[in-house]
């Protein structure tokens, strides 16, 4: 049984204490009436370019990202690097589509993607589909952030059985729940600043120190087995790892900003210009993610998995222990505390934003739409605060009592489901051409097909599509998106033809999408 690493633990707790204070103090930052949903749930839409950079960066580069990407590199090698093309592709999308969404949401007071779809297409059922997809896709993601905290706490040596082992996680959850309740989105925004600074320091230090200790990049890559250091060249009649890699990158890029927590972080910016500027500067995080994937390979080269000191950790957490083990091996205890705190705090930021996003969705698009059509501002904000708490509690219970495997599989499915909202949300930002019921049918087809494909591939992301003797392994999400679009496109003229002369309902005007 490993011993507690006291120095690291003290540093960890101190940093955690700092951000706890910060989370509560944030309520007074850029002061606003937190009994209004857009103040609690979107920080009053006041975050400028720099804060948005920290918030969006901290939101999309989650603790799970920092544990799971190196873990994938450690386990599967070069294919984990798909995270780099993935993050290269998201920024043109952010640049082109989201300022338009920001403008129309600002003009009409929309807080969620479902609000926008409701206004644009005038169909409450399509909006409900968007809402439910958003909520269901986000919940396992929250659970996985708590998993990130579990791994680093375990790596600090704080283990035990039963309740004692779960206590640090419960405390972290308690802190998170409390400051999210009181400060809303301002809490993770302020903490993201601390977290991102720590993560950059940690990553750049690792990327410099470890190669120095291991004798240079050349030596490191020479130690990685040939099958893992590059993508496997596809055999005959298959596009093999090449199509898997490219479709994983493209599909993940298309899906990312459709997640409610991405939408929330982006809508909290103070203008479309802040978003565009961020599209150029957020790639700093992509670079860091690429470095992290390589760090997963360092773990292979350093032979850490074979060292007895870390055997317990690898047994407990599998490849997710790759980065914690490397950090424990190379760095002095106090820096270990800093890195682990960065990862744990890195879980709280997205977990907070994700729970706020889910709360916004429920409050606006389920409760206000179907239950109480005229809430007061205070009622709305209060409902959101409670829902955010419930979402986090649900995630905590899930992580404590359900095998981790399920959370990971649900998150994979979540990616396939959320991409089905692309036609209504992203294409809807450009055109009203699609018929609302056709979009709903496309969504249903894509969601069903995607779930079936995932099950057929035993809950792995890629599906081996076979056409005429050739195999095209690819990301199920991307294939089903194509199906979704085709169905929506075919049904649109059909459904429109059934009710000729009926003008499309649209609460928005073309000018609403452009900057004032």
């Amino acid at each position, binding site marked *: 049984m490993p011993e507690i690493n006291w120095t690291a633990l003290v540093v960890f707790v101190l940093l955690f204490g700092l951000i706890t204070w910060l989370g509560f103090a944030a309520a007074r930052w850029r002061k606003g009436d937190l009994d209004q949903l857009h103040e609690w749930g979107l920080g009053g839409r006041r975050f400028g370019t720099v804060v948005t950079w920290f918030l969006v960066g901290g939101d999309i580069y989650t603790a799970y990202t920092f544990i799971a990407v190196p873990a994938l590199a450690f386990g599967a090698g070069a294919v984990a690097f798909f995270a780099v093309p993935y993050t290269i592709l998201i920024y*043109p999308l952010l640049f082109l589509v989201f300022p338009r969404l920001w403008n129309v949401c600002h003009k009409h007071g929309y807080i969620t993607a479902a609000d926008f779809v409701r206004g644009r297409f005038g169909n409450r059922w399509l909006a409900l589909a968007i809402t439910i997809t958003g909520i269901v896709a986000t919940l396992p993601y929250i659970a996985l952030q708590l998993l990130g905290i579990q791994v680093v706490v375990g790596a600090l040596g704080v283990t035990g059985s039963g309740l004692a082992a779960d206590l640090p996680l419960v405390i972290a959850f308690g802190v998170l729940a409390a400051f999210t309740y009181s400060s809303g989105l301002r809490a993770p925004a302020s903490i993201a600043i601390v977290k991102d600074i720590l993560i950059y320091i940690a990553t750049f230090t690792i990327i410099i120190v470890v190669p120095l200790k291991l004798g240079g990049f050349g030596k490191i890559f020479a130690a990685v087995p040939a099958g893992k250091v590059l*993508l496997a060249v596809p055999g005959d009649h298959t596009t093999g790892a090449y199509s898997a890699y490219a479709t994983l990158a493209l599909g993940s890029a298309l899906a990312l900003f459709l997640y409610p927590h991405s939408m929330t972080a982006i809508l909290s910016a103070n203008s479309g210009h802040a978003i565009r500027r961020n599209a150029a*500067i957020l*790639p700093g995080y992509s670079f860091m993610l690429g470095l992290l994937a390589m760090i997963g390979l360092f773990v292979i080269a350093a032979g850490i998995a074979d060292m007895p000191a870390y055997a317990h950790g690898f047994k407990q957490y599998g490849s997710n222990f790759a980065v914690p083990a490397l950090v424990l091996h190379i760095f002095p205890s106090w820096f270990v505390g800093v890195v682990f705190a960065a990862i744990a705090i890195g879980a709280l930021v997205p977990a907070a934003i994700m729970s706020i996003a889910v709360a916004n969705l429920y409050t606006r698009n389920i409760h206000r739409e179907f239950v109480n059509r005229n809430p007061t501002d205070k009622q709305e904000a209060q409902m959101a605060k409670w829902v955010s708490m419930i979402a986090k509690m649900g995630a905590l219970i899930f992580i404590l009592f359900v095998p981790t495997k399920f959370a990971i599989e649900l998150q994979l499915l979540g990616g396939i489901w959320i991409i089905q909202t692309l036609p209504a949300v992203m294409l809807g930002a450009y055109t009203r051409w699609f018929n609302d019921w056709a979009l709903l049918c496309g969504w249903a087809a894509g969601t069903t097909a995607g779930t079936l494909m995932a099950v057929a591939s035993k809950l792995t992301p890629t599906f081996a599509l076979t056409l005429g003797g050739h195999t095209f392994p690819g990301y199920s999400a991307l294939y089903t998106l194509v199906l979704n679009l085709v169905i929506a496109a075919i049904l649109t003229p059909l459904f429109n033809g059934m009710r000729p002369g009926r003008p499309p309902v649209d609460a928005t005007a073309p000018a609403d999408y452009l900057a004032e």
Partner: protein
Amino acid sequence: MKDAQKKEKASWWYLLFVLQFLVILWPPFYNKMTPTLIGLPFFYWFQLLWVIVSAAFTAVVYWATRG
């Protein structure tokens, strides 16, 4: 008239984004070990370089379409 001209100017710059997509979505092009850079295989440094290049493209498009 001025607005239409602005819009047309913007379209050419957006081709940079198309280039970005095409290059990075073609793994056979960069799935190689050599040439290396400070010991890094081509596969890795090329994609990292492309992060910087695409950030630069975005910055260019931002400035060019600011109007």
